[in-house]
């Protein structure tokens, strides 16, 4: 940057405003001060020698951390001004949008949707890295029977933390980075509908992640990510961090969901009628709209767990008339919609990619929308298929089996749309397109094994076994994460202005995908043989299957490291990307690199959908 530019940008800075002084550092300091003072304060109120009292102290300290951090980073400046009957000045608003600041705006409470998108991207990649490292440790412990790589205590914590870290990361993996960065440009908007809420959703997620990390210092979460109730009420102080994390994350995702939905409904460019909305926008919107009713039940379940643990209520305590089944219901009423919250944006990203690289229109966009809507609608009626074997009501297993298996029909439509787009095409097999093929293979296996598991007699055998673990990894990692990686490779040039390193991404793709299939085919075998999930140790009979899985895990781990290298390297000194490297017809490729603050100099007018490829026969 030249001195001149510095000067001009300086002139925009509101000189005496508090906003200019606040960033992540002040947030961390305020958060630590708040939580420490709450800790010392509550220690004088409660007795440190009793488990329940410790839970109170930690819960209060963690809440104080979140509030302190948000105050410290300046999240409440706007609402505070409203309270005293004012608002931010125009200059302050411009400053808050990151105008004229370099890298530092990524560490601030920044309202620019592109900054939030990058924050999400880095956050998600950090979470995936942490979760992946934990997966490697889990697989290393399972390399042979009786291996004592970690103690059972740490193993259980690893399983739980790997699970929840990956679930949180995958929920935001596509809607976070691409939904914030790309989606507004895709519909021709200057920003999201509620830019300050957008920043709030990211920084809430950040406080949640920090809270989740703190669980290591309090003994971990020995319950698995499902945190089933009697076990979670019995668990040590680390569980408090899990509860607070989920509560904050539920708030964050509700805010993000409302924001994306409002943006898509009200901020579309002129001429972008409902039938011209790109499929990624539709998929993401349906996904976040599905999250809005789903997550509050999870939040409620955790609030009740917090009450059970701190003030001794008995929602889940059978001794005083509560029930663990209540927890299971609340959890899975969120839990099953949530897997589709994860899956839909990934699939939608791949549907966005396919027409560009095959140079054909998306085949039957109506079928795609019906497929998404059908999945979303049915997904709220199937939760109890996770509870076939729980014994809460065997007579209701039949109805839930019916609704569950019906999901195969809209899922079939999704296959049809991608397949119809490929049909008679000559695809350009760049990294994003490779991910489409990997998705078809993985989702086919994940889907078919899902039909076995939805069948009650089979589930009576396979429930709670490694087979289930393999099944949902095929859908969540093999399909959803692959979709997000495809999306990253596709939009990387627009998000960073540079091309993703091609050779490294191919190497990463093949290692990851082959390794992935090796892991989980081994795990299907182990599950069929009868190995339960979440076991720190196992019998000799499962040794071969588990060894194969571990080898596959190392291949995948290597592939992921290569991808990480490719992203970091390309971001810093990759080839400069042209404005539209893939020749796409979608709006996000019409803006220059780097993208100006409000995206468009002149708002576009849309006259057709984004899939006008192809010759008329």
């Amino acid at each position, binding site marked *: 940057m030249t001195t001149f530019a510095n000067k001009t940008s300086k002139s925009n800075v509101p000189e005496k405003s508090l906003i200019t002084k606040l960033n992540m550092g002040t947030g961390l300091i305020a958060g630590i001060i708040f939580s420490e003072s709450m800790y010392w304060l509550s220690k004088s109120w409660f007795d440190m020698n009793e488990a329940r009292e410790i839970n109170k102290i930690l819960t209060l300290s963690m809440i104080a951390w979140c509030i302190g951090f948000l105050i410290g980073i300046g999240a409440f400046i706007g609402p505070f001004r409203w309270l005293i009957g004012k608002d931010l000045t125009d200059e302050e608003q411009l400053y808050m949008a990151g105008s004229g600041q370099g890298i530092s705006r990524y560490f601030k409470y920044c309202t620019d949707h592109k900054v939030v998108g990058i924050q999400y991207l880095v956050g998600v990649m950090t979470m995936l890295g942490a979760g992946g490292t934990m997966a490697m440790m889990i697989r290393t412990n399972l390399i042979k029977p009786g291996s004592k790589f970690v103690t059972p205590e740490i193993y259980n914590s690893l399983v739980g933390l790997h699970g929840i870290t990956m679930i949180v990361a995958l929920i935001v993996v596509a809607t976070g980075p691409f939904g914030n960065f790309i989606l507004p440009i895709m519909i021709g908007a200057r920003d999201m509908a509620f830019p300050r809420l957008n920043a709030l959703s990211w920084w809430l997620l950040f406080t949640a992640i920090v809270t989740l990390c703190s669980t290591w210092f309090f003994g971990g979460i020995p319950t698995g990510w499902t945190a089933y109730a009697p076990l979670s009420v019995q668990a040590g102080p680390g569980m408090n961090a899990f509860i607070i994390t989920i509560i904050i994350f539920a708030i964050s995702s509700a805010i993000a969901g409302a924001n994306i939905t409002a943006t898509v409904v009200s901020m579309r460019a002129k001429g972008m009628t409902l039938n011209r909305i790109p499929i990624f926008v539709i998929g993401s919107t349906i996904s976040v709209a599905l999250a809005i009713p789903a997550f509050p039940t999870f939040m409620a379940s955790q609030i009740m767990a917090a009450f059970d643990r701190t003030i001794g209520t008995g929602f889940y305590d*059978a001794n005083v008339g509560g029930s*663990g089944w209540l927890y299971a219901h609340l959890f899975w009423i969120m839990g099953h919609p949530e897997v589709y919250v994860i899956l839909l944006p990934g699939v939608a990203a791949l549907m966005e990619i396919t027409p560009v690289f095959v140079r054909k229109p998306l085949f039957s966009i109506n079928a795609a929308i019906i497929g998404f809507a059908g999945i979303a609608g049915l997904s709220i009626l199937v939760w109890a298929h996770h509870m076939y074997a729980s014994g809460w009501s065997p007579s209701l297993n039949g109805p839930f089996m019916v609704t569950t298996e019906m999901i195969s029909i809209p899922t079939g439509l999704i296959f049809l749309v991608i397949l119809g787009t490929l049909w008679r095409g000559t695809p350009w*097999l760049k990294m994003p397109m490779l991910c489409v093929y990997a998705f078809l293979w993985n989702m086919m296996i994940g889907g078919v094994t899902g*039909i076995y598991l939805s069948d009650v*007699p089979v589930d009576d055998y396979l429930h709670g076994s490694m087979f289930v673990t393999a099944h949902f990894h095929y859908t969540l990692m093999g399909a959803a994460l692959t979709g997000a990686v495809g999306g990253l490779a596709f939009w990387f040039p627009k998000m960073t202005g540079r091309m993703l390193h091609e050779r490294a991404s191919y190497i990463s793709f093949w290692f990851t995908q082959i390794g992935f299939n090796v892991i989980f085919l081994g795990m299907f*075998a182990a599950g069929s043989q*009868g190995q339960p999930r979440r076991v720190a140790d196992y019998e000799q009979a499962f040794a071969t299957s588990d060894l194969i899985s571990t080898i596959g895990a190392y291949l995948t781990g290597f592939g992921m490291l290569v991808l990480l290298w490719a992203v970091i390297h390309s971001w810093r000194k990759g080839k400069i990307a042209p404005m539209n490297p893939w020749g796409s017809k979608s709006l996000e490729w019409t803006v220059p690199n780097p993208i100006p603050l409000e995206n468009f100099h002149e708002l576009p007018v849309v006259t057709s959908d984004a899939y006008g490829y192809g010759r008329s026969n």
Partner: protein
Amino acid sequence: MNTSNSLPPTIGERARKFIKRHDVRMSFLYSTLITALFVFLGLWFYPKFMPEVMSEQMQNGKEVIVYFTVISAPVAGLVLGIALYTFLNRHKGDTPPPDGPAIRTNNPVVLVWTVVSSLFCLIAISWGLVEMNVASSEAAEREPNAIVVEVTGSQWVWNFNYPDYGISSDKLNLPIDRPVVFRITSVDVNHSFWPVQLGVKVDANRHAVTTVRTTPNVLGGIDIRCAELCGLYHAYMESEGEIMTASNFNSWVTAEGGHTA
């Protein structure tokens, strides 16, 4: 070009032309190969890895997996076969490929696809419902001479109580060909009672009794595992048992100090 071409082609002509196309034939070939692969997996992979079948429930579960795999093989074959053909028929080079045909949709194809997948779904649903129904009605019929076993899970052991015989054991021994009713509960957190070779499973909940029925029909050892994460030593919450002849069972009961009424 002869004059007959001026008329619109009949469905038969279009079909003949369709199946003569190179991409159609190759896609069909790949689809067949992939279908064969999945059928092979269904008939070989699962039967090879699943443990010995020692009850009707286990038999049912195993059959469903095998048949569902075989039924779904053509669907997987079709999708992956077409995908494989396009994958091999890829565009090489560093510029975007030439435009393909602008097929926006094809309503008959969408319709047929939806109807066929709904039929597959219907088959799967009816199969499961019929099997569940048969299992429960058979269990109800055989109730009278059933042997009751009270299973209690605690961190991290299983206990088996035989109220009819006045014994309690950490081993689950059962007489062959006699229906058994498991009444399962827990004294602490959730566990899941899984006698692997019998193919049934149900959670153990505190202050609640869950029930599951089966009839062991093959002699031999069985493994009992816990299928619900229940704390520190979840992995080691295992017990053994044996399906034995009626006389062996009676002598085991006597040896344990029980009474064979």
